[in-house]
């Protein structure tokens, strides 16, 4: 930094201090909301102002979680769901990208398929659940398929749009070197769309959670979705809420990881 007058330096320091102060204030309120929310929940439940059978209480949830961690069963359920979700969104993104590449390669096909894509995109994909289960059997493959199917079409549409949006002058440069369509795709279209692909990845993480949880509702063998539906059936809402909490935490971590990946890749 250049040497500036003491007066400017002073106000700069003040400015930094204000920024820090604001940051601390925000963090304080965030923590406050957290504590107040769970305290009130605990209080209401203990005083039975809300039905503890339905709304459980933070203490009960934590003690159940502790119990499940001790016997290790929560890890197998969570691991199963995480595995399915990752597979689902990777598969969804991959297939969506491949489909987009196909559409780019055959412009005629993209025109023919356009209305079908619109319909498929508008359709709520989880409604396909029963059909998937009939076709793939009530197990692992159906759940993964749900996790993937839910994101394929939207991925295709977003990435195809990005393929189409690549500046034609980049292709012109390549064509003057006699580049084939494949080379144009590999050297310009695909790398230029990389940011778009990564950002669909972020959206797809969220979508895949929906697909996988619904899949587990339907198939009901193991996983966090299974715990929710099981807890519901035996009227153990502590179990339901605990599973929900775990899902929220893991989904956030996963999203942050992809977000981190995005920043890292886009930077380089």
């Amino acid at each position: 930094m250049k040497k500036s007058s003491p007066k400017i330096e002073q106000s700069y320091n003040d400015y930094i201090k204000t920024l820090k102060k604001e940051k601390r204030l925000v963090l304080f309120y965030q923590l406050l909301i957290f504590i107040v929310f769970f305290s009130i929940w605990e209080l209401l439940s203990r005083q039975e102002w809300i039905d503890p059978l339905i709304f459980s209480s933070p203490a009960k949830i934590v003690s159940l979680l502790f119990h499940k961690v001790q016997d290790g069963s929560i890890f197998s359920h969570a691991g199963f769901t995480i595995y399915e979700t990752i597979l689902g969104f990777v598969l969804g993104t991959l297939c969506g990208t491949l489909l987009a590449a196909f559409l780019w390669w055959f412009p005629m096909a993209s025109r023919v398929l356009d209305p079908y894509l619109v319909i498929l995109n508008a359709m709520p994909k989880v409604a396909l659940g029963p059909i998937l289960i009939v076709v793939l059997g009530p197990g692992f493959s159906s759940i993964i398929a749900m996790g993937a199917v839910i994101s394929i079409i939207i991925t295709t549409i977003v990435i195809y749009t990005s393929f189409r949006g690549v500046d034609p002058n980049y292709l012109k440069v390549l064509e003057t070197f006699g580049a084939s369509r494949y080379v144009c795709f590999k050297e310009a279209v695909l790398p230029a769309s990389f940011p778009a692909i990564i950002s669909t990845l972020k959206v797809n993480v969220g979508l895949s959670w929906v697909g996988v949880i619904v899949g587990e509702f339907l198939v009901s063998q193991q996983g966090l979705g299974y715990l929710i539906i099981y807890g519901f059936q035996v009227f153990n809402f502590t179990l339901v809420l605990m599973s929900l909490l775990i899902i929220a935490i893991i989904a956030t971590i996963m999203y942050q990881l992809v977000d981190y990946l995005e920043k890292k890749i886009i930077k380089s």
Partner: protein
Amino acid sequence: MSFLSVQKISHTYFTKKMSKTALQDIQLEIEEGQFVSFLGPSGCGKSTLLSIIAGLLKPTNGEILLEGKTLVSGRDHVIGYMLQQDYLFPWKTIEENILLGLKILNRLTPDSKEKVTRLLKDIGLEGTESQYPRQLSGGMKQRAALVRTLAAEPKILMLDEPFSALDFQTKLKLEDLVWSTLKSFSKTAILVTHDIGEAIAMSDVIHLFGTNPGHIVKTVEVTKELRKLTPFNARNHRDYSALFQTVWKELESLEKIIPED
């Protein structure tokens, strides 16, 4: 037989709403090693003509002969193309960018690579090999784009307003650099521009284009003295202002005859 011959080229664009004749009966000859400019207002089909000569666009009528043979496409790479912006690939390093042509043409050897590296050095970009385009200034990027184009050793070079996005000083410097680089390789070149001064300073022959539809109005030869000078020195020569006046009047009279649409 001249080096490049443009024979009765016409081109009409068709869109859903209309058809637009961009070029009509373009006839011209270019000799080997010549520097030719297409000068005219925007929309008169200059870029279209370049795309046709480069084999990137099939004309509605007419043909292009290079050394007496019909030009089919850019397949054997005889044409180099430089655009208004550098269009360096931002995710590739400068080195990867300038070697791209050779790589696509399957002509990347240690020998050819060394040649290109030397060219990069000659053009004043030594040490930028591992940098990314965004780390370079506009003028440097345009120079790197020139290296990329020359790397594939095209027989003829097309420059589509390559200096128009640059500030004036950079533009003057680059004009000199491009001019002397091309002269040293005795490259045949076509420059598209709407800048009268640039056309006079750089070229041997200027074709003036008119609009609606694009056609050649007049062909002006640049005087022998001016041709020998670098663009910067040419701009200071006595003949320059005289020629500028001539071309200016010619373009003025065009505007009077053909009203804007």
